[in-house]
């Protein structure tokens, strides 16, 4: 099996999707000849032509409006937003249009073919306009699916699933891992299920839940915790909306403790939703309050980024606090 980094895995997934189905189109700012500022769409224009892989003018609301129309027509657009921080001009098209297209028409029309890719997250000295994790902004929107991969293998399998999914999917890619995360990735076509979390490690004392780049942080924290004899169960949520409550609840019923972590600010972040739902379902089994390890309630900083980020030490301390409550 070849080794790929996450960008290669994503590029490979797009290549497979475009080769297989000529209705699949890739576009966005600098996506065409240049292959995207991160090169996720490299060589696609060469292979599939300028009508199927192209640059758009610099207008996110237009990119997604255009993509919505294309999807409604029956094409399968994969639109790139250059940074997740720049997805907000398209917020109306996504939240009021993409998400409600099928519902409002009684399923006469839908934009299920649409996938929106965007690099997200911090740890790259990007300051508050190249570091945001906006998943929670969208997770309040029925009709959208939101997926975040943690490594190249997951990225390829989840992206292929997202493209073929009959619902519109926001696919947030942890850009800090684009080149940093490498691993074996099958060359052939495969899909990983949407809507299903994955227990990446079993344990008995405490459950840790995260997604995307934060899974690496969790793994490091777990190493520290296990050295202290704390047995951790780790869950990668993978799909943020609709999320797999059952898998998390089942784990917490067993461990009695839960730590959830994400980079985005705490207030209104998706950890809040998980905590709210799980305290409801597992109330009598909880040994300690559900803990959240998140960014501060501030814009994403630059010089003090390290201090801001929910790193492995902060997660480890939360695990300790949870177990010693």
């Amino acid at each position: 099996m070849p080794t790929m980094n996450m960008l290669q895995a994503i590029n490979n997934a797009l290549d497979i999707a475009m080769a297989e189905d000529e209705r699949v189109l890739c576009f966005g700012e600098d996506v065409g000849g240049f292959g995207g500022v991160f090169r996720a769409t490299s060589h696609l224009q060469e292979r599939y032509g300028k009508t199927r892989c192209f640059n758009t003018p610099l207008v996110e609301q237009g990119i997604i409006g255009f993509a919505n129309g294309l999807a409604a027509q029956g094409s399968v657009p994969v639109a790139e937003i250059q940074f997740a921080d720049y997805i907000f001009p398209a917020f109306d098209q996504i939240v009021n249009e993409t998400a409600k297209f099928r519902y409002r028409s009684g399923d006469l029309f839908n934009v299920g073919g649409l996938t929106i890719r965007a690099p997200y997250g911090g740890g790259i000295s990007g300051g508050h306009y190249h570091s945001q994790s906006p998943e929670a902004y969208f997770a309040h929107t029925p009709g959208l699916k939101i997926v975040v991969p943690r490594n190249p293998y997951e990225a390829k399998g989840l992206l292929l699933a997202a493209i073929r999914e009959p619902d519109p999917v926001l696919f947030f890619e942890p850009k800090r891992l684009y080149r940093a995360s490498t691993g074996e990735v099958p060359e052939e076509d495969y899909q990983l299920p949407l809507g299903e979390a994955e227990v990446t490690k079993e344990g008995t004392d405490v459950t840790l839940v995260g997604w995307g780049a934060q899974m690496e942080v969790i793994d490091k924290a777990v190493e520290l915790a296990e050295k202290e004899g704390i047995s951790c169960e780790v869950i990668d949520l993978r799909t943020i909306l609709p999320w797999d409550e059952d898998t998390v609840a089942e784990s917490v019923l067993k461990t009695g403790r839960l730590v959830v972590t994400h980079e985005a600010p705490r207030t209104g972040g998706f950890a809040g939703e998980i905590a709210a739902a799980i305290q409801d379902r597992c109330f009598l089994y909880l040994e300690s309050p559900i803990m959240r390890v998140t960014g501060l309630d501030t814009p994403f900083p630059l010089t003090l980024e390290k201090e801001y980020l929910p790193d492995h030490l902060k997660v480890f301390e939360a695990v300790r606090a949870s177990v010693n409550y």
Partner: protein
Amino acid sequence: MSTTRDIHVPEFLAGDEFSIPTYRVLNQEGTLYEGAEEPPLERELARRIYQAMITTRVLDERMMAAQRQGRLSFYMQCTGEEAAVIGASAALDDADMIMAQYREQGALVYRGFTIDEFMNQLFGNELDYGKGRQMPIHYGSRKLHYMTISSPLATQIPQATGYAYGQKLAGDGLCTTVFFGEGAASEGDFHAALNMAAVHEVPVIFFCRNNGYAISTPAIEQFAADGVAPRAFGYRMHVIRVDGNDILAVYRATQEARRIAVEHNKPVLIEAMTYRLAAHSSSDDPSGYRSRKEEEAWREKDPILRMKRWMIDKGWWDEEEEKTLQEQLRREVLETLKQAEKRPPPPLDSLVTDVYAEVTPGLQHQLDALKAHIRRYPDAYPKGARSLDPEVSRTDDANDKGES
């Protein structure tokens, strides 16, 4: 970029260098302007257009009356703009996609949406294709290639560009026409749509109904330029301004626009100068922001009257026929209305279907909890209570009608 001439003194342009004329064929007397040529429009098609205009007018009058009686929660009229909307629709292939704003029911009438179909949407009953989820006038028909209306303004404009791009790739020779008001043209989405259409050479017709108002806001507070048409220059796009109350001009211009779009894959902007004769909607009262005199002046330019005179001149229509048609339509609307308002609401399950292609476990759970709650308080939720048991109340194939 064809950057052209040099100048050596700092001269500013302000757009006064050119002006955008208005294309007119038919005057208010129903005869042709001097020098105007009648577009080839056969009797049958002319009658189909005219009848659609009358039907739209009658439907609007009756439904606004029904709204005033409290039978309907909300309504919006096309009144005064029938020629613009129906003239454009008639110039299209019936399989072309239409993406409308909300005041274009005339296009649906023209394409054959039945009074029954209108009523079911207006009353959001179990036969509404939209399953009672949107406010009245948010029609849609897959069969008639008419995209379901969405309230947020201008969002359909870049969507039309995308839809038409897909049509171009599909190579079926079809195009998309998107309607919008001069108010909606102020949204950022409009600018995105035109620019992308020009850059990507998309067969889309941007049809602006410049009816002078966006709710209470007059066009003069909407933009400083001479209408919406000059914006086409910003994107290098073909553009024409037409008298929107002139059925022949609208028809002919749209025909030509369609040719440019489909044969050359070039977008076209049409600005139809017209007037919103009625209130913005049933919630609005225009007396607060415009004069009766102004309204009267426009009432005299009624597009239906103008076409009627032309039709009668041609011998293609007469007053007798008109009277019969009007009476028949009024009757049909009223009868259909009565049936539609009595039809049951969509089933309770429709609250959670179509959010996703399949109902998610979470939503199923929420529906189950809701059902348990309604069982406890059936009287508090009469609409929901009647369909707790889907087998009993659901007309099974009802919802499939408009889709095929």
